[in-house]
């Protein structure tokens, strides 16, 4: 086993014991990025010198016997949706290509205070909208298990960089499955905390009632380590919850005795790939062998989750993204060209005597907004702005937005009822393993339906995670989805860890790194 195959938890022990320096460790991951990221393309930006300087500073402080933060010396990759002061934060969008935030997101400030080494910003679907990473304005990310396939999304870069051992830990965000789905497709572990567990301050907003930040890593223990640093109340986010943060790392090794697992009938129906189903059922048997009791239950509103989500998320997105106006920050269209075009348009309409069209032509300010946004946003972001604007427009609000909010409550009630009977829900995280790059790009609805197992978690506001539970015959990773009642991250992590003690799926590495799905 080489250095970079070891877990973050092992690295931390080595750092503390002085068996390795942060510079050595950081250099090992930077070397791996050098070797493989030209093909995986998980990162949007890496600043090796800044990372090494930081590592050196931590080593120096350690040598001087100074007290250090919780993650001292550990490299962490950051999804480019989180504001880093003075450093580009693009959301993989042209509109933010040159944006340098004037402040750090709360989770970034926490990571810095914990003395983590921020190793780079990872690729994503533009504004976190998408499940394949193909919506990045800069380049797609490739799945390390098969470079012709998607890594999932929207935190595809974060999942791929952990899978390719280019970082031991990564921070992602999850609005409808954006941590769990790529974790599943790349064979790593990823957790979406309960809404309110982690501050969203400085997370570029997509859908504010659904967005949540969480960890990606190789193991449940490593997720516990990172979540402990990320979680906690923040006065700067009024939706963050003022509850004590459990010491996840202290309890994660304790198996859950008398665990009651629920399988949702509706999640084992049409559209579920046979190999995914087989792997998930085998995982359930592993839990049974560890003493868990399994019951089948029904969540009658789960078939409406995708429709509900794709009303609510675009509505919130269309209103959140109204801030990109080409005035305060972000891309602005060439103003001279815009004014010249507008003038020519006026002259043409005047000549044609088209009074109505002339009156309908917008003023230069509105035209500036429209052109800046048209040039700055990619196709999927435009689609969601259009969808949301439509659903919120006069005459459609009740039929779409209000209706979806009502169904959202029914979905939450399904969960509440389920958790009266069971401790965790267990099932597939995606309906199939990773698909080919380009396969669904022209069919937005097919792309949306890929999210059918994950979106209801965000609608309900509860916590969930994905861990590796097997491989398809083509050697592609399969993810296992565990969902828990609100603020039961500890239960999720303990449940994941007991599975990882009994299996070794999480330890496999892609063939491009000299590993294989078989061992």
């Amino acid at each position, binding site marked *: 086993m080489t250095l970079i195959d070891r877990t973050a938890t092992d690295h931390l022990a080595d750092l503390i014991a002085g068996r390795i320096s942060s510079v050595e460790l950081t250099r090992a991951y930077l070397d791996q990025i050098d070797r493989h990221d030209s093909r995986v393309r998980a990162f949007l930006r890496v600043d090796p010198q800044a990372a090494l300087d930081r590592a050196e500073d931590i080593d120096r402080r350690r040598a001087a016997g100074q007290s250090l933060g919780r993650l001292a010396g550990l490299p962490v990759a950051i999804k480019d949706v989180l504001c880093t002061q003075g450093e580009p934060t693009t959301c993989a969008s042209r509109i933010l290509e040159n944006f340098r935030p004037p402040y750090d997101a709360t989770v970034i400030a926490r990571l810095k205070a914990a003395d983590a080494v921020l190793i780079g910003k990872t690729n994503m679907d533009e504004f976190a909208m998408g499940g394949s990473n193909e919506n990045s304005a800069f380049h797609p990310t490739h799945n390390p298990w098969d470079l012709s396939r998607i890594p999932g999304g929207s935190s595809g870069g974060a999942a791929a960089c952990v899978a390719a051992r280019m970082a031991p830990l990564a921070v992602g965000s999850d609005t409808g499955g954006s941590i769990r789905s790529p974790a599943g497709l790349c064979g790593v572990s990823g957790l979406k905390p309960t809404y309110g567990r982690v501050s969203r301050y400085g997370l570029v907003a997509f859908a504010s*009632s659904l967005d949540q930040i969480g960890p990606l890593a190789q193991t449940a223990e490593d997720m516990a380590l990172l979540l402990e640093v990320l979680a906690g109340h923040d006065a700067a986010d009024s939706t963050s919850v003022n509850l004590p943060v459990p010491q996840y790392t202290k309890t994660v090794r304790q198996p859950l005795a008398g665990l009651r697992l629920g399988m949702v009938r509706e999640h084992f129906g049409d559209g579920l790939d046979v190999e995914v189903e087989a792997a998930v059922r085998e995982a359930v048997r592993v839990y049974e062998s560890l003493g868990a009791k399994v019951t089948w239950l029904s969540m009658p509103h789960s078939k409406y989750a995708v429709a509900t989500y794709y009303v609510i998320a675009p509505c919130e997105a269309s209103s959140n993204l109204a801030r990109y106006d080409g005035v305060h920050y972000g891309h602005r269209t060439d103003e001279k060209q815009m004014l010249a075009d507008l003038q020519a348009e006026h002259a043409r309409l005047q000549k044609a005597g088209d009074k109505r069209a002339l009156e309908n032509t917008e003023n230069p300010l509105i035209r500036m907004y*429209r052109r800046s946004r048209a040039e700055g946003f990619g196709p999927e972001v435009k689609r969601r702005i*259009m969808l949301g604007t439509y659903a919120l427009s006069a005459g459609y609000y009740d039929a779409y937005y209000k209706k*979806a909010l009502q169904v959202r409550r029914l979905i939450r009630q399904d969960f509440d009822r389920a958790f009266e009977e069971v401790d965790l829900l267990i099932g597939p995280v995606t309906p199939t393993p990773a698909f080919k790059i380009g396969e669904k790009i022209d069919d937005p609805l097919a792309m949306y339906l890929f999210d059918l197992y994950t979106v209801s978690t965000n609608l309900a*506001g509860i916590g969930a995670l994905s861990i590796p539970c097997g491989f398809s015959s083509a050697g592609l990773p399969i993810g296992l989805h565990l969902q828990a009642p609100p603020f039961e991250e500890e239960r999720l992590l303990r449940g994941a860890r007991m599975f990882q003690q009994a299996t070794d799926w999480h330890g496999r590495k892609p063939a491009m790194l000299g590993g294989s799905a078989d061992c």
Partner: protein
Amino acid sequence: MSLSRPEVEKIALLGRLLLSEEEIKRMTVQLGDVLGYMDLLGEVDTTNVEPMVHAQDMTNVFRDDVAHPSLDRGQALANAPHRDEECYLVPAVL
């Protein structure tokens, strides 16, 4: 559910987007598909169901009315594509 071209153009204006001819055509079909799928929600009986706008039932989270430092003007203007020393600049509105 299908959308007409004037509807798509109107939504694009409301959403402050400017779509090319080709985008309008593609968007008309794709939005129609997605909205058609959403008609599924019509079969759910939501009589007397309170809309769920947020995952946490919190209202009016207040902090003490104490002044905190905030961004100074230079920082606030730093990312503006067009500005002078003290203002954001925009095309003439009138």
